[in-house]
């Protein structure tokens, strides 16, 4: 037993020295992660801003101008362009000169001023960008209805309306997209770094020829896998902690939950990811195959984790598949810890499936590693 621990310790040290020994391998633990963090944190947003709005106003009354003015002053719109006819407006949307357009008919003011009539406005939006069109549609509807009530109120009372719905947004008061993506981003980075430090670790040794040399030593397969796994988890944890520190102090996204709990979930998660990486590695003979394996694993795992799109939107059977996806649980835990300050029980509810996945994939990795030696 003591000999076994000593060997695992040596194997662990060897992996760590190799990983930290040369600038090239050292950089792999830091640089891609920072690039990923910066690139995603700035580029990843579903917000609708800088919209070019087209307007066709066939009405000559005051009402229509003030109505349209209430749009032009909103920061969402970068530019308002005027068109002569409805056809021109449609044409402009078709050519993607503008994203959306408002068409005000010639009886708008008259209807607004009448007691019984309903003023009609048509809103055209480019459905080729479906999500953006949904967001903008809701926003324009809200502005329009608010404007209507405001106009009526002011007309009756002679003073502007003061009350209306009070909106509070939990967890992210200013609805900054980056903040809601950030915990998922940490999870994404954890995944890639975990796979990166493990998926090549066996196949690289195979290609370099060092693997046979290692196998003829008294170290048993389990010891070799253990040494590699502990080293990979250790290195990846270091890399993830660095990224987390950048997120907390650089991007000013505070950790709501406890640090200990975050560390525990990260390590458990890494254990499962690293096991999967080792599994890929023991199945492949060359580094190229490992890279390919990692490449086939990562995108689906990320997509089916709720990172880019909510899991609720998936068909039932696909939703069921996500249960075995460790990324999903880590994603949930990280969002809970960073954004929601979820209770410890809820985090533990994520930890349990993570631990199960980790245990199963570790056993599978050892099994495959042993089988490859036959």
């Amino acid at each position: 037993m003591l000999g076994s621990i000593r060997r695992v310790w040596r194997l662990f040290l060897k992996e760590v020295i190799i990983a930290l020994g040369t600038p090239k391998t050292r950089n792999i633990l830091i640089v891609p992660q920072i690039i990923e963090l910066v690139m995603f944190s700035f580029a990843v947003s579903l917000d609708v801003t800088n919209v070019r709005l087209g307007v066709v106003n066939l009405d000559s009354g005051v009402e229509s101008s003030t109505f349209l003015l209430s749009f032009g002053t909103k920061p969402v719109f970068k530019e308002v362009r005027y068109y002569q006819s409805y056809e021109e407006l449609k044409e402009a949307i078709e050519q993607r000169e503008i994203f959306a357009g408002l068409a005000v008919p010639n009886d708008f003011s008259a209807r607004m001023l009448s007691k019984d009539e309903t003023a009609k406005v048509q809103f055209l939006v480019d459905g080729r960008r479906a999500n953006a069109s949904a967001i903008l549609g809701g926003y324009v509807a809200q502005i329009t209805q608010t404007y209507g009530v405001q106009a009526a109120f002011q007309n009756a009372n002679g003073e502007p309306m003061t009350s209306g719905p009070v909106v509070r947004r939990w967890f992210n008061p200013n609805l900054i997209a980056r903040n809601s993506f950030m915990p998922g981003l940490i999870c994404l980075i954890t995944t890639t770094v975990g796979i990166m430090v493990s998926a090549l670790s066996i196949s690289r040794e195979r290609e370099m020829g060092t693997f046979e040399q290692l196998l003829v030593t008294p170290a048993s397969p389990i010891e070799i896998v253990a040494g590699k796994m502990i080293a990979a988890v250790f290195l990846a944890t270091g890399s993830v902690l660095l990224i987390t520190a950048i997120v907390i102090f650089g991007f000013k996204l505070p950790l709501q939950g406890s640090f200990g709990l975050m560390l525990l979930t990260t390590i458990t998660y890494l254990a499962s990811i690293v096991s999967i990486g080792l599994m890929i590695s023991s199945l492949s003979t060359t580094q190229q195959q490992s890279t390919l394996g990692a490449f086939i694993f990562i995108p689906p795992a990320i997509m089916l984790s709720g990172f880019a799109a909510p899991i609720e939107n998936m068909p039932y059977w696909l939703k069921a598949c996500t249960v075995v996806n460790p990324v999903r649980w880590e994603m949930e835990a990280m969002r809970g810890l960073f954004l929601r300050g979820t209770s410890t029980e809820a985090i533990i509810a994520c930890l349990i499936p993570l631990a199960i996945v980790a245990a199963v994939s570790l056993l599978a990795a050892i099994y495959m590693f042993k089988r490859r030696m036959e």
Partner: protein
Amino acid sequence: MIVFNAATKRFPNSTTPALDSISATIEPGKITGLVGPDGAGKTTALRLIAGLLTPTAGSITAFGYDVVKQTSRVREMMGYMPQKFGLYEDLTVMENLSLYAKLRNLPRSRRKERFEELLEFTGLTLFTKRLARRLSGGMKQKLGLACALITTPRLLVLDEPGVGVDPLSRRELWRMVRGQVTEETVVLWSTSYLDEAELFDETILLNKGKLLFAGVPKELTKNMEGKVVRVVNVEPYERRKLVATLLKKEEIVDATIHGSSIRATMNRAFDPASDSDAVFEGRNVVLTRPCFEDGFIDRLGGAPKEKEGADREPRPKRRSDENVVVAEGLTKKFGAFTAAADVGFEIKPGEIFGLLGPNGAGKSTIFKMLCGLLRPTSGDGYVGGVSLRKAPGAARSRLGYMAQKFSLYAELTVKQNLVFYAGVYGLSGSARDRAIERALDEYDLRRFERTKAGLMPLGFKQRLALATATIHNPDALFLDEPTSGVDPIARREFWNRVNRFAEQGVAVLVTTHFMDEAEYCDRLALILDGYKIAEGAPDELKASAATAATPDPTLEDAFIRLIKQGREGAAK
């Protein structure tokens, strides 16, 4: 005709040039050998001719065309076979031929005829539909040659065609290339096997980028005439000691074991009257024919002399006669294919045992089973009395293993490698420190202690590999083609060390392609198609292959003969 005019090639980030101002002329109508150990600059020279690299200084012309300015003219008349043969592994034999025929614009009308000719000539007719990746080393080499010969080139360039190929296939290759030589053709063939050098019509000997010799190989051996002797009939237990003793003498330039005799080179002509007693301690000494390697060693200033007191802390000698390594009916099946069938042999303490056989014969399968890298289908192996089946970890801790390619961690320093392997072999504390200190001294690795292992010169890498393989003082040492591509000086040094281990009672198992390396062994087993077809001392094997035509066969002759017999036997 190819003319090298002070050609120099210097790669960026390298302090010494890969080729250092080489001037030579290669004549048509002959096979010219480009000979030298790894890193001598052979491949660089060939790539320069093919216009794949451009010289840093100087110039090269081929048939009057400048290889840089008129690259395509040169390439059009050249057949080029790179290392690893340049075959597309995912294409069949026929597809490879057809591809090169099209790339070289062989007229469609002549293709069928030419393909048949080449297939016939290389003996690949039956394998046209086989993927290149599934061919044996020898067949790949033949196919590579066929692809290079597709348009009957005037200039045939072969880069180490013999690497990883057994002597039988190598002989066939010679025959084939010979058949191509006409008055007009220039054939340039590079090799790191020195024993091949004598077969060339002309030889260009390179070492570390420098030209050591150019001319008819006989010229190099000529001035060794009279200096090379054989001490015959040396008892097995004396051989290694005698080599060591001889090497300490001033007059002796080189000494190696050769079957039951010792081959020695003197720095002056051998004088039977005085030297037999004074130098060779009254033993039976006869003059013998010098070979190319003797000339090479002489040019390099002789074999390495052992440093006095290098082995400061002698290991305890093992005094048991119990077999250290035992193979007992080792059998390995991969599906329907039997890679090894019921192979058995024993190795005693202090014995050097060689496994020989053509490529794909099953040597490495047997070797891997004995290292515990492969689990036998049936049978078992024992190292130091421990079963590899029942206690693989314990058995492995008794053996030291050195792979063919450098297989230590290139990213770790020399010291870190030693610490790591000492650790996994269970050494700790002061025992570990002592073992590491001793290895650093004994293998002269002190100055590289903090150097990354991958950055060391080849010879030192090999020393480190042997040092780590023996750091735990194993009972048995397993060497897989340990010295391919290494220069002869380093090879001698290596064998001196291995001999010292054998003297201390370590059992040594070697696989090799080098016949002179096989001569170092006490006993050999010849493996063919998974079966052990012969076993015995080198001289016994040679004697068994003697015929009226060749009364005194070399080990290579014996090897080829035994294999032919074995194949005929299997056919019946």
